[in-house]
């Protein structure tokens, strides 16, 4: 089985600040891989570097056996799409849902746009009633569904998820996570998911990588995390923190 996505000794530098210090990882096709760590650990930067939104200083990124250059081509965006953290910031404030979904189709020259938009909206559980709304007429969960529909409309094989539910409240969070899980199973997608919430990662991902200060701390499986078979102190601290505070 070949890796859908592999990152080799990736370095990202912003103004002499090393945000990523030689991180490597490999995600198998159809797998769901988690990235965990505190704020500023570089997990979002890693995702953005893969998407081409953050400049890679050195190292390489390979998608489906093809090494990526500094500039991404159109074919790349049909393979890899991303869902952003904040659904309030990731939808254009002056465009209807219809317009938002049409844009990727227009860019890539799809002819059967009408059908695809219908299907995408159905897939994320938004009926056609939402099609001509502006983003300010949607709730947070609905917005994130639209963002997911937009990412899926080009039928990518790999989906990058940057804390897709951290801006939503708990009940909506579960809905969106279940939706993502269902779509992954149906479409056999590969997920690379960032979260600071260990519960979400253990629920969604088979394997995960713990990050701190732009470096990989350790690689684990979800089972390891549940049974607390961790070797590094940092991961242990994360686990303890995720248990919440205990009333003395």
């Amino acid at each position: 089985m070949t890796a859908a996505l592999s990152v080799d000794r990736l370095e990202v530098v912003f103004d002499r600040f090393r945000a990523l210090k030689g991180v490597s990882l490999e995600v198998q096709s159809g797998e769901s891989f988690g990235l965990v760590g505190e704020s500023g650990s570089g997990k979002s930067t890693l995702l953005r570097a893969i998407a081409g939104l953050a400049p890679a200083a050195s190292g390489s990124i390979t998608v489906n056996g093809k090494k990526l250059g500094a500039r991404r081509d159109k074919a790349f965006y049909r393979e890899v799409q991303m869902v952003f953290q904040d659904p309030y910031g990731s939808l254009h404030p002056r465009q209807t849902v219809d317009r938002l979904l049409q844009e990727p189709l227009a860019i890539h020259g799809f002819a059967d746009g009408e059908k695809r938009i219908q299907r995408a909206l159905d897939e994320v559980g938004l009926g056609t009633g939402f099609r001509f709304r502006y983003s300010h007429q949607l709730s947070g969960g609905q917005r994130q569904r639209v963002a997911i529909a937009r990412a899926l409309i080009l039928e990518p094989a790999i989906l990058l998820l940057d804390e897709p539910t951290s801006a939503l409240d708990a009940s909506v969070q579960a809905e969106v996570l279940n939706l993502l899980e269902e779509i992954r199973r149906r479409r056999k997608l590969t997920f690379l998911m960032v979260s600071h919430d260990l519960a979400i990662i253990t629920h969604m991902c088979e394997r995960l990588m713990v990050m701190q200060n732009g470096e990989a701390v350790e690689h684990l499986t979800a089972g390891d995390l549940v049974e607390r078979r961790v070797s590094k102190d940092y991961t242990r601290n994360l686990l303890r923190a995720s248990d919440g505070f205990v009333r003395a």
Partner: protein
Amino acid sequence: MTATHAGLLSRRDWLLSERPASRMQARLGRAYVAWRRFSANRLAFLGLLIIIALLVVAALADVLAPYSPTFGDLKGSRLLAPSAEHWFGTDDLGRDILSRVIFGSRWTLYVVILVAVIAAPIGLLVGTVAGYAGGWIDAILMRITDIFLAFPKLILALAFVAALGPGIENAVLAIAITSWPPYARIARAETLTVRNSDYIKAVQLMGASPFRIVLRHIMPLCISSLIVRVTLDMAGIILTAAGLGFLGLGAQPPLPEWGAMIASGRRFVLDQWWVAGAPGFAILIVSLGFNLLGDGLRDALDPRSGDQ
């Protein structure tokens, strides 16, 4: 009565629907919300009425004007005071001032619309491209903008007219050339605030070209603040055109342009005040109208005002 009332009500519901069924309905609904916010502002509404009146007067000048704007009775009606026959009096060549003010509205509109049509797109393009591209493209475009901004507007326009020759077309060109830099600045500032937002990043991730992003995703966000600014500037454009006309570098006689009319009335301003007073008052009213309209538009179109 009740039937039409119900009809009106349901049409409003249709416009304000949270679930528009078509692209058209969504767009109309948005326009309706903006219109409601705009028309709630009495002063802005007054401004709109003034501008509509200006348009009507300009369109129907041939019908409304009681006398010819260019030919007068030199023998019998020079410098007559306002009367029932000549509402605004007559000028030194015996021409009816009311007719000249009415026909002058056409030239005012001509100047204002042409300047807006030339200057606003230039400013929008320069500003959004500079803001989105960044780096050396930004540096070059904004330094050019700075050079234009460094000159006082009227002086630069004077220099252009002096080089191009006097005339209303050249005045328009000169004003347009001098009025785009502020628009470029505004468009660039707006672009900088949105260029790193997630929704622009999302479009980049669709594989959109920079050209497409600027044209279809950034420009629409800049347009409303630009419209507001252009409307507020229209008063200034009218005044600059009048200033050039007053200095003899804009409209040439016998064109009934308001600035030029004030210039020719200057000689009699103490004894026959109406010669300069009438076109001056017209400039005042129209400038006021554009200013009120601009203020109202700012409230109605402001992209930052929540529920747009």
